[in-house]
Structures are given as C-alpha cells and as structure tokens.
C-alpha cells in the first residue's frame, strides 16, 4: 500500500468560519474510503483541497507526493462535477472527449459509455439528459483518464434505487481493477455498500477513522425499544445517549399520549438492569444493534442528552 494523498494538520478557514480544523488524513491505495458527515462538516472542503481548487490556511496537502495545485500532479486524479453541472449545449460524446483530451492513456468514449450505461446517448446534448443520465455521465468522467485516485462528492444524490445500484456496481468493478476511491455521501447505505474504511467528520474535525465494522464497534450503540407510561423517567436513567419518540412531534419526556420510544444506549445489559431496578413499569422490550446511520448521528450529534432535554430530533437528513 502506498499513500496516494494526505492531509497533515490541515486547517482551512473562510473568513471567520473554520471549515476544516486540524485534519490529518492519509489515503492509501487500494481502498474505498467513505467520507461521512452532515452538511457543513467539511467533507467537500477536504475534497476540494485534494483537487487543488482551494489551498490550506495551514498544514500540508499532498497529492501523489506533490502539490495538488500543480496541474501535472493531477494527471492521475479523477473527479466529478458537482450538481451535475454539464455544459448544456455540448453532446455527451463531446464532453467525454473534452475531458479525455487531458489524459495520456484515456479510456475510449464507447467503452466508457458501455460501462456506465449511456452508450445510446452519445449524440444527445447534455441539456436533454435526465437527472440520472447526467449523474452517470458525471461519474463516468472521473474514470476517463484511468485515474489512480478518484474523488466522488455525493455521486448518487437524487438517484432512484435502481440507478444507484447500477452506479455502485460500476464503482465496485472500477475498484477491483485498481482504482482507489474516496466517496462522500449522505446515504449511509451507500457507505455501507461500498466503503471498507470510514472517516466520519463533524464541524471540520475527524471524529472517527476506522474500518466499517470498527466504526460500528467504536460507537457500539444499541437500540432499546419499549412501551411505558413513564418514558421521561426511563430517559433519565444512566447510559442513555439519545431518545427517539415513536410518534413524530411528540415529546416522550413530557407527553402522556406517547407510550413507546427508542433509547440509544452504550451498554444495553446495564441499561436493562437499571430499568428493572428503577421499578418503572414497561412492556414490549426489544433490543438490537444500531445501524451505521444511528452510530453516525451519535458521533456528529449533540453530546449525550441530560434528562431535561431527553428528546433528540433527527438532524441532517
């Protein structure tokens, strides 16, 4: 494994706002790295620092051992336009040829079109494509130069399930042929489906950097669902990270008409023991492990809630 790109103690400020705060990150060859975080966490800034679009306020950004602002250093980098912004009057084939002209050993247009499923569209102007077709073309552009490292910023936003799966298959097959991929996403199932290593960012900092299972273990939250007329007292028990009412808009801490809620706890055994000891009446107890989405919320969300503010609102999605 070689390090393709790295950030060393990188900070980037925009005026008074610190978008990236002392981030150190090494991207080794051969992995698919998932970069997760809510809006404003600094994901896109990290990507654009690696693309050479922005410079670090302090710290060092290296791409293939050089400076990403140096054009020649970007010849093994693939990236994708944001917001599917393609020049509307150019034909699909022309856009591919335009981008391909920047690379020494480019993939032939027809071959790329077949792989990403737009081979019938090469003569169409990009302005006439559907959202999903634009997205496939945009992602394909990242691979036209046979890159060693590919940076994908939210590649499947706005796609339906089927189109997303097609794109994931193309990404996986590109990865098997040797491309290292960094993918940012709001879709946690996307990261779960693709990534081997997960970096979670929040407020410009790296909150977790581990294997997929490692992140899950590290957070190690369990969901405990139960019914009770005294949900507020249950929420006040030690070890409760977060509470979600089962009825949207109802405050489980105070309202009498909410009877069931889900409690996120670090140690479900200790929690259940404390619950029983407390003498609170409950029924319908169920315990299961947290999904990545839930683990992720507890990493980026507010600190463990005090009893008076036991309700948490799901944010960011």
């Amino acid at each position, binding site marked *: 494994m070689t390090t393709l790109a790295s950030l060393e103690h990188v900070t980037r400020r*925009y*005026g008074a*706002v610190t978008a990236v705060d002392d981030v150190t990150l090494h991207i080794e060859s051969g992995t698919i790295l998932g970069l997760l975080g809510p809006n404003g966490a600094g994901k896109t800034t990290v990507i*654009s620092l690696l*693309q*050479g*679009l*922005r410079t670090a306020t302090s710290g060092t950004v290296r791409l293939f051992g050089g400076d990403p602002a140096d*054009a*020649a*250093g*970007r*010849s093994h*980098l693939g*990236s*994708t*336009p*944001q*917001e599917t*912004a*393609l*020049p509307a*009057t*150019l034909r699909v084939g*022309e856009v591919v040829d*335009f*981008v391909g*002209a*920047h*690379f*020494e050993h480019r993939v032939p247009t027809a071959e790329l079109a077949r792989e990403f499923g737009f081979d019938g569209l090469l003569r169409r*102007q990009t302005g006439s494509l559907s959202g999903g077709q634009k997205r496939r073309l945009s992602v394909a552009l990242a691979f036209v*130069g046979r890159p060693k490292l590919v940076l994908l910023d939210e590649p499947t936003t706005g796609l339906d399930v089927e189109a997303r799966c097609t794109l994931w298959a193309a990404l996986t097959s590109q990865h098997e042929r040797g491309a290292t991929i960094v993918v940012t996403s709001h879709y946690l199932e996307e990261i779960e489906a693709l990534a081997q290593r997960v970096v979670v960012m929040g407020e410009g900092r790296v909150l977790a950097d581990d294997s997929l299972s490692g992140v899950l273990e590290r957070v190690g939250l369990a969901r405990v669902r139960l019914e009770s007329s005294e949900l507020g007292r249950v929420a006040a028990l030690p070890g409760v990270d977060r509470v979600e009412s089962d009825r949207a808009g109802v405050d489980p801490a105070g309202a009498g008409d909410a009877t069931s809620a889900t409690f996120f706890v670090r140690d479900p055994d200790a929690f259940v023991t404390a619950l029983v000891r407390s003498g609170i009446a409950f029924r319908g107890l169920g315990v299961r492990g947290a999904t990545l989405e839930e683990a992720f919320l507890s990493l980026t969300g507010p600190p463990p809630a005090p009893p008076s503010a036991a309700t948490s609102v799901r944010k960011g999605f």
Partner: protein
Amino acid sequence: MSTAHLTLVHAKYSLLETARVPIAVIGGLVFPALSLLFFVVPQRMVADDPLFATQAVIALSVFALLANSLFGFGITISQARETAWDPYLRTLPAPALARVLAQVFSTGALGVVSILPVIVIGALLTEATAPLWRIGVGLVALAVASLPFMFLGIAIGYAMPSKAAIAVVQVVMFALAFGGGLFLPPILFADWLDTLSTFLPSRQAREFVIWAVQGGQLEPWVWIGILAWTAASLALALVLFRRDEGRRYR
C-alpha cells in the same frame, strides 16, 4: 499533455459551445456590419470620401472588438462563475494558463470574425481604402487598443452575476461606442462632448487605429490614455479576480 495542446482543446470546446447557441453571439458579430451597411453606406457624402469612409470602417471595427471583448469576457466569466462545470475543469490536469489563453483565443477568433464583414463591406461598398501593410499595422494597433476592453470585460465578469453583467455590458458598450465617436464621427460632437470623449478608451482606440492606418500625427493623449486605461482596467480586473476567490470559496 502540453499547454499548447490543452489551450487548443479548451478553445475548441468553448467555440463549439458558443456555436451551438449562435443567437447569443450573433448580435455582436452582425451588428457592426449592419451599422456600416445602414448608417454609412447610404450616406454617400461619407461613403464616397476615402478619408471619412476609411475612418468609419475603422470606428466600426473598434466597435466590433469592443462589443466582442465586453460580451465575450464579461458574460462568459460571470456565467461560468455560476456553474459547477468551471470549478470541475480546474480539477483537470490543465494549467491555469491554458484556460486563460483559450478564453483569449476563442474570444479573439470571434472578434476577427466580426471585423471581417466590416472590412469587406467597407472595401466593396464605400471608397474606404488603405494599402495592405497599413491594414496589417491597423489590426495590430486594434489588438493593442482593445486590451482595456478585454480587462473591463473581465472585471465586469468577476464583479457581478450574469443577469447584471448582461445589462451592464450593454450600457457600458453603448456609452463607450457613442462617447468614443464609433457611431457618429467626433467632428459632429459639441466641444464639451469632444473634450469628454478624449478621456474614453474607445475614442483613444479609434484615434490610435486611424493613426496606424492613415498616418499623420498621434496626439499624446491617445497613447497616454491607452496606457492609463490598460493599467487601470488590468488592476481592477486583478482586484476583482482576487476578491472573487475569497467570495466563491465561502
């Protein structure tokens, strides 16, 4: 991939994009030729006089490049700043120089296209005349005197969003064209307007190219004015370019 090759690639696709929506540039391309055809050719007093006819052709050539530079840079840049395609192009392994040169080339190519019909109509339908080498010198002078227009266009492009840029470009273009004596010869101006006119880059460009083509005396205010406008508009463009980097990346 060499910078020269990438410059050509970027210029090619920039022109291709423009050519797909010809109406966007057709005004800039055809308007100078139409002005000559409608306002100069029928006026036989001007058209039959080699001196005045040649000056009218020169004035409209200056206007062609003025319109071309303001539209080509002002509107292209302000529009590019509003899309995510432009930042994407900057992630490709092409040096910034290639992209800037491509913009100058593609705009310049359209500028040449807009001058050609003016010169052809002038040669065929009026008494405008000049030796071939003088026309060559005139074209070089025209390119030099157009630098302030180019920098003003860049400044407008970085200063405002495209909807505002379209309006501002038109106001600036017609103010400079009328005030600079590109539509009506300055000989018809009132004294105060004639004095004011000498401070405009369009008037200076007109006089500079006329001097290059027809010879005679070059007034100091012409070349001093061109130098001053070039320096000032370049400085403005650079300031706005830098400021834009800060604003775009917020």
